[in-house]
């Protein structure tokens, strides 16, 4: 049988149904909004990160320690195949590719610019990055291409070249010799990130190695991991294994947050500003609950006086009041969590068109849809905060009741 206190608490909260419904709704609404917002934020970060890493950096990169500092062409990964062997054996790696790069003078018929010449393995690159999808004109490189190049939209505009035109590359090879080549533009890409579209030119890796006398060496091994939340763990494993290689001590593994500190910072800032908003929301809810409880206690002062007079211990009164608040909180949280999950799942499958609205997102090359990502964390954090705050809000009037003097409560209420 239900304990009489539970019964009393349950009946008490329905004495003023309007107020109870409002309070429960406030709690439910807070939970719903928090779950959706957190999931949306987490989802957009993931989209942002994945979009950014897939254009360029990968989830993590292996390179020579000093290459990272000064991009010196001589600081290479001497045995890329050994690194590839490690990645092949590491579970959770979705794809990887080799890249080499050299700063060079790039000339068209009319103009000359300094630009980055990047050697890519066309097949491996297509599995690792979105470069093939970014081609807006012409075609992506094929595995058998040699003196062909892909060029960024802005660099192409600067050089006044289009597909089929030739450009001359002039740089320094790894051995100090002059590196020179003439390549034909096969495709033009546009990522939406101006820096990237202005920076360089992609040529087949084998051709790069020949022109820049790389003798089979590369500068970067770029890897993509199956899911973002496993990056740290997998990076660690790879790091440990790379150390065992012959030239392992000279190599370093860096993840996206190190390669793109700006992105990481932008996410942290967005998270903090979100947090401030959530706290405000929760405080509003807390005040509505505090108000409900203070009113309920105030209205029932005489009743509490009688209950104490006939022998109800103050601690029992407190228990009844806290049970009442618990009922409202549990009902509100339950409804809010269920609704929050449904709403989030709905948008998780459909996506939300952000159009041109998200400044931060545009900066990282995302202009389409954002998919909220429901997780245990995004479902739990909001309601947990609501629970703590509601409990504190309910505790205050309950403690006040403890100090009630029955005579005064009965005759002067």
């Amino acid at each position: 049988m239900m304990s009489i206190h539970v019964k009393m608490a349950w009946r008490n909260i329905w004495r003023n149904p309007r107020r109870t419904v409002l309070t429960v709704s406030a709690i439910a609404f807070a939970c719903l909004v928090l779950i959706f917002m957190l999931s949306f934020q987490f989802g957009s970060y993931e989209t942002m990160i994945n979009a950014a890493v897939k254009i360029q950096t990968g989830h993590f990169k292996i390179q020579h320690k000093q290459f990272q500092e000064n991009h010196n062409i001589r600081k290479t990964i001497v045995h890329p195949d050994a690194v590839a062997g490690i990645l092949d054996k590491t579970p959770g790696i979705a794809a990887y590719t080799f890249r080499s790069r050299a700063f060079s003078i790039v000339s068209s018929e009319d103009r000359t610019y300094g630009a980055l010449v990047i050697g890519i393995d066309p097949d491996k690159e297509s599995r690792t990055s979105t470069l093939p999808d970014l081609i807006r004109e012409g075609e992506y490189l094929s595995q058998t291409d040699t003196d062909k190049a892909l060029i960024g939209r802005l660099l192409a505009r600067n050089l006044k070249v289009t597909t089929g035109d030739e450009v001359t590359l002039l740089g320094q090879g790894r051995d100090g010799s002059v590196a020179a080549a003439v390549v034909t533009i096969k495709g033009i890409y546009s990522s939406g990130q101006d820096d990237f579209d202005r920076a360089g030119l992609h040529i087949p890796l084998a051709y790069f190695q020949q022109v820049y006398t790389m003798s089979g060496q590369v500068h970067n091994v770029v890897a993509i991991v199956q899911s973002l939340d496993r990056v740290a763990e997998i990076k660690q494993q790879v790091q440990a294994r790379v150390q065992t290689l012959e030239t392992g001590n000279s190599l370093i593994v860096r993840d996206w947050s190190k390669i793109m500190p700006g992105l990481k910072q932008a996410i942290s800032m967005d998270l903090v500003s979100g947090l401030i908003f959530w706290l405000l929301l929760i405080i509003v809810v807390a005040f509505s609950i505090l108000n409900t409880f203070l009113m309920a206690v105030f209205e029932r002062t005489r009743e509490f006086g009688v209950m104490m007079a006939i022998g109800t211990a103050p601690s029992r009164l407190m228990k009844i009041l806290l049970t009442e608040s618990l009922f409202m909180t549990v009902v509100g949280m339950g409804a809010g969590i269920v609704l929050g999950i449904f709403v989030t799942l709905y948008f998780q499958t459909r996506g939300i068109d952000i159009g041109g609205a998200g400044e931060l997102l545009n900066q990282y090359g995302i202009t389409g849809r954002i998919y909220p990502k429901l997780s245990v964390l995004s479902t739990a954090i909001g309601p947990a905060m609501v629970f703590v705050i509601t409990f504190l809000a309910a505790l205050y009037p309950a403690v006040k009741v403890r100090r009630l003097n029955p005579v005064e409560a009965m005759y002067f209420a």
Partner: protein
Amino acid sequence: MNIVEATHITKTFQQGDIAVQALKDVSLSIEKGGFVALAGPSGSGKTTLLNIIGGLDTPDSGSIVLDGNAFEEMSRSQLADLRLHKVGFVFQAYNLIPVLSALENVEYVMLLQGVPEKERHDRARSILDDVGLENRYHRRPRELSGGQQQRVAVARAIVSSPSIVLADEPTANLDSETGKGLLEIMKDMNHRKNVTFVFSTHDRMVMDYARRLIRIRDGQVDDDVTKNA
């Protein structure tokens, strides 16, 4: 044998800047099984005296002994415990817990006392039958008339055989017929169960029911008459 011994009770209330002396040196004793009226005009100190006898309020000076328990030596929580087990209260109005039915209201006190569920149930039903509410077990207070509510309050006050029942103007909110009905029930319980009743009133008709009439005026005992049976 006396169930209450009150000696030299004084109580002063502060009302803003003025000190109101509600009780000025009151001494009285209540005999076991008594049916006692505390009569006096409004503001004479009846409520204050009942509250002090019941351990709800503490006197400024003087001593109370209820059924062998000297209040001076007791802590607040001990007094609360004593109220729970030895005193039944009936107030002028709003006696009942609104969210509980008549039966649950009566059971509630026994629950606090730790009486087992089955016994609680049986005793609550039988006492409600005694006060004439056999068909009203499951009514909430607001579904009962004023007189019925007061009868539930009396039932709750006597259900666990307290040493004394203190009723502060129990009929004040009732019409005279209903008031008489309530007094008949109290008298009947006093007879049959030998429960000691002290009730306050300023109504002549109510005073007539008492076997002993204590008159209070300006915080002092003015007159104390026991009628011959």
